[in-house]
């Protein structure tokens, strides 16, 4: 169908690429994401899901979230609304992912479960809608391209004879109208933007935090999520820490305990850590580059 053809076209984007930090061997197709191309969170998520057939369970979510963070970082105009949208979607993804990592029998309120489903369906609906209009826009593009091949005659009457006939189009125009029209014509037409220069650019990534936690957690043995995030200011950083923690949990490097919904999460270090090299054998690439700090580059979700 035509649709899949368009998908392929989209895959073939060829402007500046920015490859993901991860050099994962688990994901066969190393995928690339164009920076500064995705106009919004839907754009990006559509790309990620449709192009790479990203499956949220198998392929690591943290890469997606990193992609989101990169996008926010790369945004030329730091636009609070856009950033919020990105975060909102990222948060929903995190929640979806979380649900799937947690054991089935964990005490999940039915309402929560339904709420999550609703959220998921809403997100899906919005993605589909976004896709619909993207495809409609492609048709508009070809329409306008076709129309541009035909130049309309806009010459008007050419013979002097007809000129004098024109009724006085200025009879209802006042000097004030003219002045106002000049004002409209010369208005600088600025684009409204929010000055966010005071907001620090987000530098944090899941990979980076995993690296930090792998270094930090063994010293504590047992700590809480609240504890390790107590110094953080931005909510996004907390989200990233949470993701990193989930990643470690998934790999059996930490155990997580939460006694009640919204209660503090207890983190128990499970792994061994010796001489700067991760011993459990799941930290791929750790042997190539000494982990901890340089772990950024080796992290895979």
């Amino acid at each position: 169908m035509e649709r899949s053809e368009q998908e392929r076209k989209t895959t073939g984007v060829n402007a500046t690429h920015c490859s993901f930090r991860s050099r994962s061997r688990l994901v066969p197709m190393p995928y690339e994401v164009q920076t500064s191309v995705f106009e919004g969170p839907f754009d990006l998520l559509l790309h990620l899901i449709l192009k790479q057939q990203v499956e949220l369970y198998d392929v690591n979510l943290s890469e997606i979230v990193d992609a989101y963070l990169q996008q926010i970082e790369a945004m030329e105009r730091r636009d609070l609304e856009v950033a919020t949208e990105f975060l909102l979607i990222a948060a929903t993804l995190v929640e979806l992912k979380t649900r799937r990592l947690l054991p089935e029998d964990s005490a999940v309120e039915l309402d929560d479960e339904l709420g999550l489903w609703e959220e998921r369906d809403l997100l899906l609906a919005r993605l589909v809608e976004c896709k619909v209009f993207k495809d409609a826009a492609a048709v508009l593009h070809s329409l306008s391209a076709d129309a541009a091949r035909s130049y309309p005659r806009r010459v008007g009457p050419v013979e002097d004879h007809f000129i004098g006939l024109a009724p006085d189009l200025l009879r209802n125009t006042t000097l004030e109208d003219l002045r106002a029209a000049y004002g409209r014509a010369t208005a600088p037409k600025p684009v409204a933007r929010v000055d966010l220069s005071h907001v620090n650019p987000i530098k944090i990534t899941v990979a980076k935090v995993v690296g930090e936690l792998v270094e930090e957690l063994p010293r504590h043995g047992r700590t809480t999520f609240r504890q390790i995030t107590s110094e953080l200011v931005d909510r996004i950083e907390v989200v990233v820490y949470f993701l990193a923690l989930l990643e470690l949990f998934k790999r059996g490097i930490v155990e997580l305990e939460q006694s009640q919904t919204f209660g503090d999460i207890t983190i128990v270090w499970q792994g061994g850590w010796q001489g700067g090299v991760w011993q459990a054998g799941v930290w791929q690439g750790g042997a190539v580059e000494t982990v901890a700090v340089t772990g950024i580059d080796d992290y895979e979700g």
Partner: protein
Amino acid sequence: MAEDHLPAAVEAILLVAEEPLSPELLAQLVGSTPLEIEALCGDLAAQYEAEGRGFVLKRVAGGYRYQTAPEQTPYVERYVLEGQSSRLSAAALETLAVVAYKQPVSRNQIASIRGVNVDGVVRTLQVRGYIDEVARDPGPGQAVLYGTTPAFLERMGIDSVSALAPLGEFFPAAEVVEALERGLHVVPEDELFDDPPPTGEIDETGGVDGG
């Protein structure tokens, strides 16, 4: 059928018109009926085409106008050096698509569909004359509602927005929706397929202007 003088009168008027002229206006000017004008213009367009003329008579934005035959574009463009204005960006096209199909629509509604702030692009499209304020939302806040303009129709080379393919035709193919759904699924694969597809939700958000 049309009287003898009508076709030539219509040709003359269209030659000096600077915008597409509606059948109603043409009928009024030459003393005819819109229906007759439409038949006549159809005949003229067919004649020009049969004769392989360098111009065509086209119905655009609710009216008729002369424009160059697409095959002659290379020659025309040698003459109309500055005729080529900017092309529409993807952002502009997507916003236009939303406005075209959802009009009258508020900026917030557009933003919600596109998932991005659209203030800049909406303003630009308005300055370019492709969209304009058509109404105010009667609800609280009285948001400005936008619609497409005749200039938009001219730019797209279509007679009216109803000439656009129905939005339903752009609904993603089943594989795509499935891929999206899989991408977002919460439960293991096998359970997934027991669940009804969330099309109900889509209709809801897709059909109603979700503020």
